[in-house]
């Protein structure tokens, strides 16, 4: 029914123009459009990334107790319980990216309906699939990529600061720079970010679906149904399967992807943990989650097609 019986006769020139137009540009420009509208996508992680070097700088010039700068400069001598600046930066930026992603998704398909701009976006030759994919790519690709760059940059800045501090204090900076395995760290970081994106994909998919469906209070619609199910399950059967399922969905990805689970309380550090991609890929929860994410996104595309100003 979708095939027109008599399509418009396109000239060869038209074909060339449109062929160039359909390939990648609508998706690329739609992602850029998201960054124009939601500047928090890069501003919040940027601010978070400056906090660690800033903290180090303050600790250098306003030491609480003598000798603290020296111990911070040498991660080997640091007590195990205290997070290293690098692992702290990693946790901070992972958390920031997750929070930004959650709030971005809740708003993504809602604001265009509430400000009526959906009528403008729909007047352009961009399919609903492209639009939803561009929005899903923010938490699944853009934020992880940004986090990767920012963490590396933070590590380099911290390393530089330590080198300068060591130079000022006396010993050669060479000992520090050789201790930082940049390649292994980049790989582990890339792996960790991919794991988190894949593991959290159904969460982002669900949030996008709710934002495309709810007329108002998208946050409540996203959060209250799972909470209600947990409460009913607890009262009716005195079990908490749904609760543990959601808990594992939120926090369980890391435990499956890295062998050395960090001691409770200590933040995750890709520098020290051992990668177990085989175990992660063999987790049924990963594939079930990705299946759910696909279903949620498919439903969001269908809803976008019906999308009207609210």
């Amino acid at each position, binding site marked *: *029914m979708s095939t*027109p019986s008599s399509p*418009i006769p396109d000239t060869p020139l038209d074909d060339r123009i449109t062929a160039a137009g359909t390939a990648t540009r609508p998706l690329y420009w739609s992602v850029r459009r998201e960054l124009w509208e939601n500047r928090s996508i890069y501003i919040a992680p940027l601010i978070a990334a400056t906090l660690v070097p800033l903290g180090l700088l303050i600790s250098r010039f306003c030491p609480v107790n003598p000798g603290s700068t020296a111990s911070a400069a040498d991660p080997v001598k640091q007590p195990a319980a205290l997070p290293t600046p690098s692992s702290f930066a990693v946790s901070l930026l992972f958390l920031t990216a997750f929070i930004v992603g959650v709030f971005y998704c809740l708003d993504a398909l809602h604001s265009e309906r509430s400000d*009526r*701009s959906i009528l403008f976006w*729909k007047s352009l030759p961009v*399919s609903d699939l492209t639009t939803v994919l561009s929005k899903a790519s923010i938490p699944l690709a853009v934020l992880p990529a940004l986090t990767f760059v920012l963490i590396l940059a933070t590590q380099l800045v911290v390393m530089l600061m330590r080198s300068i501090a060591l130079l000022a204090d006396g010993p050669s900076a060479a000992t520090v720079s050789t201790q930082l395995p940049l390649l292994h760290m980049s790989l582990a970081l890339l792996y960790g970010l991919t794991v988190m994106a894949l593991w959290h994909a159904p969460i982002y998919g669900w949030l996008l679906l709710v934002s495309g469906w709810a007329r108002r209070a998208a946050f409540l619609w996203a959060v209250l149904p799972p909470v209600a199910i947990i409460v009913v399950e607890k009262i009716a059967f005195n079990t908490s399967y749904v609760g543990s399922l959601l808990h594992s969905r939120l926090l369980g990805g890391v435990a499956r992807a890295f062998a050395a689970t960090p001691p409770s309380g200590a933040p995750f550090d890709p520098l020290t943990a051992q990668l177990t991609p085989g175990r992660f890929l063999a987790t049924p929860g990963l594939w079930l989650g990705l299946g759910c994410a696909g279903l949620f996104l498919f439903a969001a595309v269908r809803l976008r097609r019906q999308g009207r100003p609210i």
Partner: protein
Amino acid sequence: MPCIDARGLRKAYGTTVALDGVDLNIEEGRILGLIGPNGAGKTTAMNAILGLIPYQGALKVLGRDPWTERDRLMRDVCFIADVAVLPRWLRVSQALDYVAGVHPRFRRAKAEGFLAKTTIRETSRIRELSKGMVTQLHLALIMAVDAKLLVLDEPTLGLDILYRKQFYDVLLNDYFDHSRTIVVTTHQVEEIQDVLTDLMFINLGRIVLGCSMEEFQSRYLEVMVNPERLPAARSLQPMHEREVFGRSILLYDRADRQQLTALGDVRTPSIADLFVAVMGHQAGQEGAAR
């Protein structure tokens, strides 16, 4: 191939029937005015044509099914919806970048040329522009697209007279070239009377009148009748009668012009007068049916 071809187009929201079996056939190169009271189904018809809502019945726009092929259709169709829908956070330069990035038929230089004639700066955000400027911007974006069909739903709503006049002047002088088709709905009927090539009245989801402007001008006549001739004038079965400054004005459909000239001053009615007459006529018929 007709530009828009609808057969038995129907759309219901719950129990409310917004479109009740509409047949439309709009050829290329026409400027159609779709006119009707609030809630008549104008916007629903537009939304169906633009692929924004599902519908029942057969509908082809430029040979395509709008509901299943909206994104492909939008390469050849432009529209301005009833009120300013440009997002307030967008910058003018970003609007140009985005449309140029996704629309294969957009000519950026042309849009910039239009904007150069206005006071709009490319660095401004849309929230900083006045309502008239936002409409100018939207018009500049749309006129730089080499589209086959342009749909305007109350495009000048809320604009002052200067902007409204300029809107249609620009549209006619710089855009319309007889290979494009324009469909426009508006309540400001007088403004588009000289612009249209075709006229269509819609009420309660049905087309109640459809004719070309040539037909309109030859078919409908209005006579300002002197009081003593009124009984004779009424015997010719006018569609509508109204009084202005104590003199009766009678509107006729397919009457003999010479016969009417004997009764008083004969002239072509305005679209607004015909609209009132047709709607009143219809209401009367429905009342009689009940």
